Structure formats: structure tokens, C-alpha cells
């Protein structure tokens, strides 16, 4: 697992710049911390530990406060994810449509458990609790792309399409 330097001075220039840009974008808003964190994650795909003291200083908060917010929310990631994030719905409607079989298939196909990234760095598998696609259960989301009525065959096709797109780059 990648770890990040906890000390801001160890951040590379690009990362540091992205954090500063995120701060500049939202700093003047009322109660801006969540928005800043979203912006950092949007730019860097995760929130490096070393960003915490920078954000804390800029927003006049303690490190503990910023850290507490980062860890409270499932959406914020403290480590870089794989190229694609695959979120499979675990909630009732998807369970009623054999969602647990989809879980098992996905883990087997990608050879990972939830919260893990495939060996080739392509896919991070995450559980999610409802995607609002319950009339087309079981549902999953790849990055920001929603899919419904996903069976093993459709899952494999989606994964294959993403892998093929990568090879084209």
C-alpha cells in the first residue's frame, strides 16, 4: 500500500499546488472544509495525510479536526485508488436481486476483497449503500458511470471494456 509523507515539506510540487488550488477555490465560503476535501480528492484522487496540516492551517482548524472529518466520511480516501473505482451496492433492493452473488463473482473475477486494489492497479473494489438505481437492481458504479441489472456476464463485459480501453491508451 502506498503511504504518503505526513510532513507537508515532503510533498512534491504538483501535489502541493493542487492542494493550494483547492483551498483557493473554497476557502472564503462559510464552513468550507468538506468542499475543500472534495476538491483535493477530485484533483488528486485521494487526500494525502500531508495535506491535513496544510488544510488545518489555512482554515484555522486543528489537525485533529481535519483528520476527524476525513475519517468520518466513507467517501474520502487516504490512499491512492486503482485506475477505476468499482462500487457494488450492498443494500436491500440489490440483495433482493442476488446482489450477494454479484459480490462473490466480482471478488473472484478481480481477485480482491472489498477496499482492495487489483494487483495491476486497475480496479479498486468498494461496497456502497444504495446508488438510487434500485428499480434496476443489482446495481454498481464504475467511477461515475452507473450500471443496472448487473449479472456475472455484464460484470465481466464492463471490466473487459475498461481493461481494453486502457490498452488503447
Amino acid at each position, binding site marked *: 500500500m502506498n503511504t504518503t509523507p505526513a510532513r507537508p515539506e515532503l510533498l512534491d510540487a504538483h501535489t502541493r499546488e493542487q492542494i493550494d488550488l483547492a483551498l483557493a477555490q473554497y476557502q472564503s465560503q462559510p464552513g468550507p472544509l468538506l468542499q475543500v476535501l472534495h476538491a483535493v480528492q477530485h484533483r488528486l484522487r485521494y487526500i494525502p495525510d500531508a495535506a491535513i496540516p496544510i488544510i488545518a492551517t489555512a482554515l484555522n482548524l486543528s489537525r485533529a479536526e481535519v483528520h476527524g472529518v476525513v475519517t468520518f466520511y466513507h467517501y474520502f480516501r487516504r490512499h491512492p485508488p486503482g485506475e477505476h473505482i468499482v462500487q457494488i451496492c450492498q443494500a436491500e433492493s440489490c*440483495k433482493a436481486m442476488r446482489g450477494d452473488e454479484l459480490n462473490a463473482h466480482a471478488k473472484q473475477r478481480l481477485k480482491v476483497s472489498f477496499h482492495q486494489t487489483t494487483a495491476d492497479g486497475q480496479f479498486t473494489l468498494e461496497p456502497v449503500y444504495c446508488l438510487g438505481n*434500485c*428499480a434496476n437492481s443489482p446495481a454498481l458504479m464504475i467511477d461515475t458511470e452507473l450500471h*443496472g441489472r448487473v449479472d456475472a456476464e455484464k460484470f465481466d463485459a464492463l471490466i473487459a471494456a475498461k481493461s481494453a480501453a486502457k490498452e488503447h491508451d
Partner: protein
Amino acid sequence: MRTTVYVPRDAAALSNGAEAVAAAIAAEATKRDLPIRIIRNGTRGLNWLEPLVEVATAQGRHAYGPVTPKDVESLFNSDFLAAGTHPLHLGPTEEISYLKSQQRLTFTRVGVIDPVSLEDYQAHDGYAGLRRALEMAPTQIVQAVTDSGLRGRGGAAFPTGIKWKTVHDQSAAQKYVTCNADEGDSGTFADRMLMEGDPFMLIEGMTIAGIAVGATRGFIYLRAEYPHAHRALNEAIAAAYEAGYLGRDVLSSGKTFDLEVRLGAGAYICGEETSMLESLEGKRGEVRVRPPLPAIKGLFGQPTIVNNVISLASVPVILHKGAEFYKNFGVGKSRGTIPLQLAGNIKRGGLYERAFGMTLRELLYDFGGGSATGRPIRAVQVGGPLGAYIPESQFDTAIDYEALSGIGALLGHGGVVAFDDTADMAKMARYAMEFCAVESCGKCTPCRIGSTRGVELMDRILANVDRERNLQLIDELCETMLHGSLCGLGGMTPFPVQSAMKYFPEDFRRSVQ
């Protein structure tokens, strides 16, 4: 003349391939040199037919579905642009019985118009409610909402007008209108469908709320899982500013209303209103102790309206057509219409808006068509993950707030999740505890520790370890959570657990394979 073709941009339609269908239709039309205009509408909510393609003809809109890119060539061969016959032809859209039998007041434009076209919105009665409201005194607006009988659609069913009156009566330098668009309940998607399919209606409802209570600033707290709704809302808000419906001088009335979307970050508890306010302030979403009520001390300590998307989106029609009009729908103390969301193991899943009062059985069988698998429906969970499991013997219960609470259930946000007879209700009870453990904000012990303990107990019950004693213990644990939790997450998790134990005891006593 260009023919207008509708292909939804709704996330659920896209999840079944609507984007590729739209592209295939455009390409085929170009190839055949046929002039068409593709409008990306919301969804009609007939999810089993998505992607549902519509064509505007002289005889009204005709529907085809579910369409895949492979069908497109044959659709053109069958002259679908002139409502030609084809195996996927469903006839005039409005005549499809699932749609025809509905009473759409809140979802009247969803699936009909281009969601981000202000012109289209106005051509369909859009902003008639706000115009009416601007002719009224703020107290009259609040009174109209009270008289309509509207109760909060987010779950707690509190009368909306009374909440507004409290905020109206406060004097403060700054008040806020916040929209709870966290829609965390599984089995629900009405908020998403509305925000993607008719975002101006929510914006209009919030603007009316602001003018009624003297709030000049609004926030939509949107869950991060809804990127499509985020896009639609931002497009609509920009258009509303551009046209003077938002900002410093709303429709030259001299009133100010500013509105923005803020994203949640994947925490179910942030749907609870005080947790949502903490989160909007940029903090951990820990539940606040009440009193004070948010209406008195809400966002940044100021008087604040917190309403669900559907509650706020119901306001324009109430102002436009009058409180009486709205109130004439429904039964008893459940007035107006309720957008139900049919989900899970159901043949015709989707959105079904109708006056309160039909029975669960009618919804599940007459409109929903029974289970998707063709097997008997054994149970439904109504009202999200904290709602009770209802057995088949109670399917004749009417869908209204009082009738459902009469059987120990709740309507919540109107999600109805069906399970067929292969469902294992003990596993569902375990899941309810697991969900509570994952999502607990951690503030109180019965919820934080109790739910983890509940998962362990359920694991023992499932493994047939000291079963009867553990069943007893989980019952006691449920009572502790019920009475000792600060909010509904810990306090209502016992509903699905205990209802599953009560109505499906055999599932808790299965032999272990």
C-alpha cells in the same frame, strides 16, 4: 420538419445503455439523411422499459422500449419516426396503463420536458407557483402550505407548513432554506429522479420557501453518489440565475434568494437533519441533541428550514393550483400524492405517484406485476433500511402514514422493496445490524456498540450456536437500542430486525448446511 425523439439522460436509463441508444439513433438518422432532434429528457419512471425512447408525432408521443443499439436499425426500417409498428412499440406513452393509472402532481413534468431547459419548464406551468407566491404576503404562503396538508416526505412526516411558520416567526439577520437531498434510504430514488428530470421544480420550491420565511440563502445537500443529479442541478441553477429567477432581485420583486449545491461524502447518517447541518458546516456528521430545533437554531446557528426534495418540489403546485386542490387528493391525515418507488424483486419497478390510500397489494400486483422472478412475494420492506419487513398477510394495508404505523411499519420516503420466497429474512436482519454498525455516527453507546454486538449475535444464531438464548439476547438488545438511542438510526434499526424475527421465525431456526 425535424422529428423530435426523446432519449432519457436519467442515470437509471443510462445505466441500461441509453447513451449508446441515443448515439445509434443520431448516427442512423444521419446515414438516412432524416432530420431529427434528440431531446434528453428525464425518465418516465417505467424502469423495466428503459431505455424508453419516445417520438413526438401529430397524435402525441409514442413509446418504444426497452431499446438497445441493435434495435435502432429496425426501428428506422419500421418508420418509428411516424409511430410505425415494431415489436418494441408500446403505443401512445400516456396510455401505458402503469402511467395512465397514476396521479402525477409532483412528477408531472418528469420524463416529459428537457430538464435543463427553462423555456420548456415555463411552457409546462413552470414558475407559475412562484409568480403566485410573489403576489401573496409571506404569512399567506405559509398558510397555503399548512392548509394543503403537506407532510414531510423525507421520513418523519412532520407538517411542512408548521415548520415553515416556526422559521417565519423567528427574527434573525440570516435565515436559511436547506434541502435534504441525501436520499440514503435503500429502495428509494424519487429525489434523484426529480432532480435529474425536473430540477427547476425543486429550485422553484426552495425559492418560494425562502420568500415565505425570509431566508435569502439556500443549500441543497446532495449525496456524493448522485453525479448525474449534481450536473442537472448545477445546469438548472445557472440557467435560473441567468434568467433572474435566482439572485439579488428574484423576478424584479426586490427579494434575494441565492442557491448552491453542496456534496455529502457517503455517510447515511447525514440524512438525519441535524447531522446534515453539521456536515453542511463542514464538520463530522454527528447528530445534534434537540432542542433547539433546526427551525430555531439550525445552519450556522440560524433559523433554518430543512425539507426533503419531494416536500419542497410539492410546493409550486400547491401555490399554483391552491391548497384545496392538493388537499383533495389523499385520505385521512395523509393528503396529496405520494411518489412510491417500486424496487427489489419486482417485475415492473419504477416510480408510481398516486394519492395516498391504495393498498400494498394493489401496488405490488396490479401495478408492479408481482415479483421479477415470478415467485410469490414473501415480504416487503417499506421506508428504507430502518423500515419494518411486512409479511404477505398484511399486504392489504393501505399506504398512508397512519395505516402503516398501525401495523408497526412506516412509510418513510416511500420506497417499497419486494423479496420473493427465496429470501432469507435472518440474513436481512443481520444486514440491518451490520448497516447500523457501518453507518453509526458513534455518539451513543446503544447504537455504536449495540449494532456490532447485534451482528455477532446474528452470526451465532445463523450458525446455530446457543440459538434460543441468542434470540432472546438480540430481542433485549433491540429494546435497549430502541429506547436508548439519540436518533432514528440506532432507534429504528430494531424495526427490520424484530419484524423479521416476528413474522419469519422459521428463518432464524434453519438447520446449518
